[in-house]
């Protein structure tokens, strides 16, 4: 996807590396997330997906490489770059001792959301959370907590939305609903999404493009609906299993 410098991709990752002593977690990966695009970051456990997302979120310093969010260099102007992002991850629930509205207001202030009360009301409606507005997040079901986390992730209308297994704890009906909202987010706005999931059905339904990671490298990328056939596999799941078990076969293909 070609981008001019005046209209940069929402995320540009160049030669990104992260190593811990002798362990290389992410090994020189490069990719972009364009506007109105949902990019799936796939791979087996330990492939480097969450490490990559943590680096994009600014909570993990790369060993080398560059990350630009909306054209802003994350390493040089961290605060400005992160104003364009938000995220939801299954391992990062919002504080359970605050109510839904309190959490949204707290994070709304941190992200500098204008007319935050109006924005919160809109999100409560959008994510069907109005009846839980004064309920502490800790007592919500995991599916409801995920919806609150997604509402928080939408607070600042991010240009780059990072979603780490956002539907992992949702029932199929709610998961479909959430997928529709995320697609709606990219279709109506100018933002892009980086999405990790182990649900290949979901990935096929949602993602415009996927990156397969294994052992810290991006082995394959392309359209999730065409990629399996291009590599002689019947389904995306079959391709995933091949990446997980025989990454070298694909690396040298």
């Amino acid at each position, binding site marked *: 996807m070609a981008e001019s410098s005046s209209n940069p991709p929402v995320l540009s990752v160049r030669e990104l590396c992260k190593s811990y002593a002798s362990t290389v977690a992410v090994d020189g990966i490069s990719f972009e997330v364009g506007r109105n695009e949902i990019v799936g970051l796939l791979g087996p456990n330990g492939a480097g997906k969450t490490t990559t997302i943590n680096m994009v979120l600014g909570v993990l310093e790369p060993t080398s490489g560059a990350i630009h969010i909306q054209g802003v260099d994350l390493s040089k102007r961290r*605060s400005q770059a992160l104003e364009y992002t938000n995220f939801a991850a299954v391992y990062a629930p919002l504080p359970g001792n605050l109510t839904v509205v309190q959490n949204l207001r707290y994070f709304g202030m941190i992200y500098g959301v204008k007319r935050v009360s109006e924005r919160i009301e809109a999100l409560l409606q959008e994510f069907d959370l109005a009846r839980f507005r004064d309920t502490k997040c800790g007592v919500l079901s995991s599916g409801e907590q995920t919806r609150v986390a997604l509402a928080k992730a939408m607070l600042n209308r991010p240009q780059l939305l990072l979603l780490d297994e956002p539907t992992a704890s949702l029932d199929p009906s709610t998961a479909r609903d959430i997928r529709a909202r995320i697609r709606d987010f990219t279709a109506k706005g100018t933002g892009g999404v980086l999405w990790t999931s182990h649900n290949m059905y979901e990935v096929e339904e949602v993602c415009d493009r996927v990156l397969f990671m294994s052992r810290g490298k991006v082995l394959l990328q392309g359209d999730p609906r065409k990629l399996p056939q291009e590599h002689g596999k019947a389904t995306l799941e079959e391709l995933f299993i091949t990446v997980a078990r025989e990454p070298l076969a694909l690396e040298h293909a």
Partner: protein
Amino acid sequence: MRLSRAAAIVLRQFYLLRGSPSRVFPLFVWVAIDIVLWGFITRYLGTITREPGMDLLPALLGAVLLWDFLTRVMQGVTMAFFEDVWSRNFLNVFATPMTIAEYVTGLVLSSIATSSVGLVVMIVVAGAVFGLSMLVYGAMLVPFLLVLFLFGIALGIVGTAVVLRLGPSAEWFIWPIPALLSPFVGVFYPLSTLPSWMQAISRLLPPSYVFEGMRTIVAGDSVSWTTVLMGGGLAVLYILLAALFFTRVFRHAVRTGLIARYSAESVS
């Protein structure tokens, strides 16, 4: 710096306090108990000590009040930070545009609010029950409180950095810090009571200047501004060093992935 981000930390503390008696009571119950306990001890000592010119109330009960204030200031900072530790909120907070300076400012503002409650309660109880007037310290009361406040903030920032670096279980290193310092700063006795090696350490600690100054006033003498400025200067220096320490620990945490992996387990 955007103050609205620091204000978000204060708002979060307000939400937590408003809905939680177990967070509200410690703001004033323990300090009130301390004042009552030391008030009666002071009263008793007053009956067995008949030294002329020796007013135990401002020398002893006043010292307890000032020391408890410093402790509350420090705990105000650390408690606001621990809320993020206990709710495993680091990733949510530090993956935002909030800068370290904004975060620490939020902790300090939270501490100002919570420690003020404790200070007011102590002054009211000490005055109403035991007749202690803080006006006995004259114009020096303000600089005394300021020095103790600044040093309490510095201790709080160091405490948060230690827990950030070593993990949640390290909070048990933090609670006893004031108790460890109290013998050196001469809360209850003149520094001349201490052996010379302890006096050398005392001279490096800002509260020492406050408590020596306080006793000087109680004895009817005047405190030199040089003494107060020395304490204030040291306190400012410690705040700068504490901020530097926190920044270094935070950068280490970002470099090593500690922020992303921070959990209920100690990382030490």
